[in-house]
């Protein structure tokens, strides 16, 4: 892999995903802050003799708990993403990597009014690969897919399956136009070389395939 090409792009990807995630976490904190503030307001009003429905306290408490759960999920994804750089060769659950990447990219896609959903396979697809390079490549494919998503659904359907040669195939469906050569630019080519993969048009209309022939996990 040509590090001069893939290295800076990888850093930009890492920074971009981290920035998106901090924005999401900040929203959670903002909502918790406002609900806590509303609790204070209601306490003050109750202290001044206003009748406050006990259901309000319960609702606000549930809202705060809900945001804590949301933030916990975001932090779990960010933690998985941060650890993706730990090894350039490890047995990785491809479905899990897809879910983390889609989750972290959610706000970026929402900016273009696009949604991505991951259909997890019944059996885990585990491949010896470089998790960060895989997520970077898949993230770039997602951005490409978002530019070519079919109307009116505007939904990218992501799936993965084990390939006969011990590799894995990731499918991005729901596109209106698939030009694999356009998707596989200079950076993508470097990542594909590192991952021993290729990008091609799927057999079904509107499908882009990311095929990886990495060694199966031991």
């Amino acid at each position, binding site marked *: 892999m040509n590090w001069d090409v893939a290295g800076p792009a990888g850093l930009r990807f890492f920074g971009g995903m981290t920035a998106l995630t*901090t924005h999401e976490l900040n929203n959670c904190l903002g909502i918790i802050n*406002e609900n806590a*503030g509303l609790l204070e307001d209601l306490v003050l*009003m109750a202290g001044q003799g206003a009748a406050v429905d006990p259901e309000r306290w319960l609702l606000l408490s549930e809202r705060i708990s809900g*945001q804590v759960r949301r933030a916990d999920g975001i932090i779990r994804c960010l933690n998985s993403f941060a650890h993706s750089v730990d090894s350039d060769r490890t047995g990785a659950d491809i479905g899990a990597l897809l879910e983390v990447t889609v989750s972290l990219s959610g706000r970026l896609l929402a900016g273009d009014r696009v949604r991505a959903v991951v259909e997890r396979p019944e059996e885990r697809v585990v491949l010896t690969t470089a998790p960060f390079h895989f997520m970077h490549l898949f993230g770039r494919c997602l951005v490409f897919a978002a530019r070519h998503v079919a109307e009116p659904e505007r939904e990218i359907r992501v799936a993965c399956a084990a390939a006969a040669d011990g590799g894995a195939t990731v499918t991005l469906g729901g596109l209106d136009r698939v030009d694999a050569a356009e998707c596989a630019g200079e950076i993508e080519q470097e990542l594909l070389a590192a991952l021993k993969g290729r990008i091609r048009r799927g057999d079904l209309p509107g499908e882009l395939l990311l095929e990886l022939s990495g060694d199966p996990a031991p």
Partner: protein
Amino acid sequence: MHVLLVDDETELVSTVAERLSFRGIDADWVTSGREALRLIGEKEYDIAILDVRMPGMSGLELAREIRSIRPGLAIIFLTGHGSQADFDEGVSQAGEEYYLTKPIDIEVLVGKMKEVLG
């Protein structure tokens, strides 16, 4: 004082609106730039409070649209820890004093609104 709040986080924007109402401020809220433009076309507002980062039309894009149809409407931007480019454009549009970082302090927001309206 009649205020329009725009933020894609429903729970946040509705709660801020309720807290403003406790302080005697009449606040409508919406979760997209498109809905905001519709309401601004129908009602008179004194201030629009806009989240900078929203899916579809961003707060900065929305502010440009608002200025073309309601040049006199005061705008306060709310943001998370956005990019320097976002900050620079927000400041150039509204001035640094009308650019608040989330999580917000409701009393600071109310103070800014009063300051904006003189």
